[in-house]
């Protein structure tokens, strides 16, 4: 059962990824991305990470993709449909990426998890993922968490500075 489920998710994720980068219409790409994100979220569920699955759907699908859609609204879709999809020298990219893929695959053929930590599945099951995650986050990852807040502040300030119209 889990094999089938994993196989479905993998095929869907890979297929949607290819779909995203090959669409002429950027709106289609964004939609493909939405589905892909949801599938990735499902994969997280599959890995006992409910909280992350929720975050994935809420932040990625809910927030980031909306931003993308906004940006796409500026594009002239009609014109977009008639222009070239790839850069002139896209052929160069294929062997390079394929070469790297092969090398990486050779390196990653037989990886195994190296270490075992404290948070085994039973522990998470009893604690619930969100609680375990939250405890860990605020006990051990306080500093990064605070840094994230500064990053988001910078993002807000930066986005406003760049996108606001000139005041006269």
């Amino acid at each position, binding site marked *: 059962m889990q094999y089938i489920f994993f196989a479905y998710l993998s095929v869907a994720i890979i297929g949607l990824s290819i779909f995203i980068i090959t669409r002429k219409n950027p709106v289609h790409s964004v939609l493909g991305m939405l589905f892909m994100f949801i599938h990735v979220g499902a994969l997280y569920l599959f890995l006992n990470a409910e909280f992350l699955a929720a975050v994935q759907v809420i932040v990625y699908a809910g927030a980031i993709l909306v931003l993308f859609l906004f940006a796409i609204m500026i594009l002239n879709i009609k014109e977009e449909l008639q222009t070239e999809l790839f*850069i002139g020298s896209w052929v160069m990219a294929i062997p390079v990426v394929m*070469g790297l893929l092969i090398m990486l695959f050779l390196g990653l053929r037989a990886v195994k998890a190296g270490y075992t930590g404290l948070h085994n599945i039973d522990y998470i099951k009893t604690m619930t993922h969100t609680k375990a995650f939250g405890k860990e986050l605020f006990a051990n990852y306080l500093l990064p968490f605070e840094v994230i807040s500064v990053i988001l502040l910078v993002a807000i300030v930066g986005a406003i500075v760049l996108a606001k119209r000139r005041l006269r």
Partner: protein
Amino acid sequence: MRYYALIPFLPLLGFLINIIFGRGLLKHRAHWISVPVVGLSMVLGLMTVREVISGNVINEDLYSWVISGDFKVSVGFLIDQLTAVMLVVVTVVSFLVHVYSIGYMHGDPGFYRFFAYLNLFTFSMLMLIMSNNFLQLYFGWEAVGLCSYLLIGYWYQKKSASDAGKKAFIVNRFGDFGFGLGVILIFLTFGTLHYAPVFGSVSSIAGKTVVLFGYEIDLITLIALLLFCGAIGKSAQIPLHVWLPDAMEGPTPVSALIHAATMVTAGVFMVARCNPIFNLSEIALTVVAVTGAVTALFAATIGLVQNDIKRIIAYSTISQLGYMFLACGVGAYGAGIFHLYTHAFFKALLFLGAGSVMHAMAGELDIWKMGGLKNKMRITYVTMLLASLSISGIPGFAGFFSKDEILYQTYLKGDLGKVLWLMGTVTALLTAFYSFRIISVAFHGRFRGSHPEEHHLHESPPVMTIPLVLLAIGAVAAGWVGIPPLIGEAIGLHGAWFYEFLSPVVGHPSEEGSHSVELMVMTLSIIAGIAGIILAFYLYRGDAERAKALLKRPFLKKIHTVLWNKYYVDEFYHLIVVRPALWTARTVIEAVTDIGIIEAIVNGVPKTIGRFSERLRAIQTGLVNHYAIFMVGAMFFILAFILMVK
């Protein structure tokens, strides 16, 4: 208080201020900065000398610039007795020349530039003499050279001036190349460049040899001779003397300061400073002595027949420098430095006097166009006369004491010494002769120029004559610190104070002579000097008919021609160095260039890099994707490399 550090750096400050503000703010007030800084530096210098006389020798690193393992570059000062003597010479003469230049260079368009260079020179020279290591010595050595070229070519619009600058540069390259090799060899041998450890351990390498081109060469001798190469170039000894007469293209104060009193004596100073090295090599000492004696005689003979007043004095300088090397070569470093010290005063005075004459004569240099100047230029005449008496070795004047000591010490130095002594004594006669030839022709008799010129004649302003007077006092009295014991006893003064003062650094000459020998040498040199003077006045009285009559004789005429052409040395160099070089340049290089080899190397390398650069630029297409492709490609290659090699 390390106030002595200010001695060199004050002139440097003057240079910086002048070079930054000279063009705009200072202009013709450049001397407001330059002269006081050098004056202050002189005062500090003399204070330091007093310290040294009372027995304090300073040797310390002020700070280290870069240290890496054995290699250490530091600015450090060694102020011992030898440095003290040089300090007196450099700061006093430099200050007087600065003052003199205010008058002499008045109205020159490059006024501030001139003073800036003079300041820079003073700084470099002080760094050279006050250094406590070879690297700083080398720095000062090259820096004084640089200032010298800049000042020789000061009137760069004049082709002869810029040519002379180039000539000085190229000729000095030969010497400095050897000097640089010597310094490197010292570092390789001793692992340090500081004087104290090098001189301290120099005896341990005595007798060590190195194999060079298949010959076994004594290491000490090699080092000493390489160092001496530098001295030959800088102090214009045979065979690298050719640049100094041409250097007279520079302004006259420069000739007085750089090409008479200070820079050209750096070679002598360096040999005296390195006496522990030279003392260990009999061969090197002999080379030094013979070079000195031959140069002294050789340059004096050329000086006999020249007509250009500055050139005569320039050859005289070369000749006197020869004396100094002669002294060093026979181990009498004290006498050499003493001559350096007295020479600085009377030679600077001769040049400044010549400058004063030029000032009156609107730049005229030919002594035959002058004449009878003594009535128009009293002070100049009297001071020039005193300087000439001093250089001729007339008893009581500074030059007498130093020259006498050199000749005496040379005489004591075995059979070779006797020969060299004879050459030195003959040179003394010639020296007196050409010095008084100038006096006789230029200052006595009647004026040979045009009437307006005669009308223009005037004594120089006080700003120029006061330095003359002060230097004249030096030219007369500076020698009294080194009265020979023989005379000292006779007049009840402590003799040879100067040599005792210097002996901690340079030691005593090895040979001891008797009073009778000393008296004989002294008498002969006095006779030579007086004979030269009388001869000069006899031959060049009035319109010099007697001299002209002599030249009618074919034999003397021939000699005159040879001397007039300076033994054809320049022509010889032209033939063996310049012509082949030019020929190579014209024919070979042109031929090769036609084939394209040289072009490929000289122009080709930058051009290829340039073309390569242009080609590479094309890769930078401005397309983000391409940039990423390069990144990913590089990652692929690196990963492939690592994984495959593993």
